[in-house]
């Protein structure tokens, strides 16, 4: 069966520091991969999605970037965090061939102080 893992689960970082959140998917190949952000009291916002290695699409302009160095690895990064980057970040995947449902990881809490 397919599983998705993301880490770290919780992160407290000072303003101006770098960020790296990592996500991996097991049990499938060539998945579509996504990063969503959930700000407190708000819905989910799609940040990035990727349909293949090295292929990244950004949905909103921001202080963050994403990379996909391997087929089942998706990384969310920032060179200098802002207070407004605080939130709950969710990695997700879907079957890249037949589309269908997307499945979420357990999320990473980021607090920028």
């Amino acid at each position, binding site marked *: 069966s397919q599983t998705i893992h993301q880490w770290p689960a919780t992160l407290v970082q000072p303003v101006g520091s770098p960020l790296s959140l990592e996500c991996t998917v097991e049990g499938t190949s060539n998945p*579509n991969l*996504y990063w969503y952000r959930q700000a407190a009291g*708000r*819905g*989910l916002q*799609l940040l990035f*999605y990727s*349909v293949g290695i090295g292929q990244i699409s950004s*949905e909103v302009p921001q202080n963050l970037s994403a990379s996909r160095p391997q087929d089942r690895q998706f990384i969310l990064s920032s060179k200098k965090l802002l207070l407004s980057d605080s939130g709950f970040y*969710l990695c*997700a*995947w*879907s*079957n890249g061939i037949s*589309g*269908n*449902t*997307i*499945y*979420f*990881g*357990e*999320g990473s*809490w980021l607090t920028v102080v």
Partner: protein
Amino acid sequence: AQSVTQPDIHITVSEGASLELRCNYSYGATPYLFWYVQSPGQGLQLLLKYFSGDTLVQGIKGFEAEFKRSQSSFNLRKPSVHWSDAAEYFCAVGTQTDSWGKLQFGAGTQVVVTP
């Protein structure tokens, strides 16, 4: 513009009572509809989905949802709630014209279950 609306931000229900969560959408293309549940501090779990066919969809944990095209709605229901159903529920919509994962989410409905 495409949109997903969950009119109820917060719902309180007694254990054993029925629950209905509303979801309305505005999309130009044929929608694909999902309901997810999120427990505090956790990721989202898929409850059910509608792509085509029977408009009454059964999901996990005793939930069901009905797609009503004429009303642009996809309401979630459960006949008898359990304390473990306390969580936040998100409706999401995608279309054939979008990559499958480019779902648009509603703002969520927080469900509180009282004894």
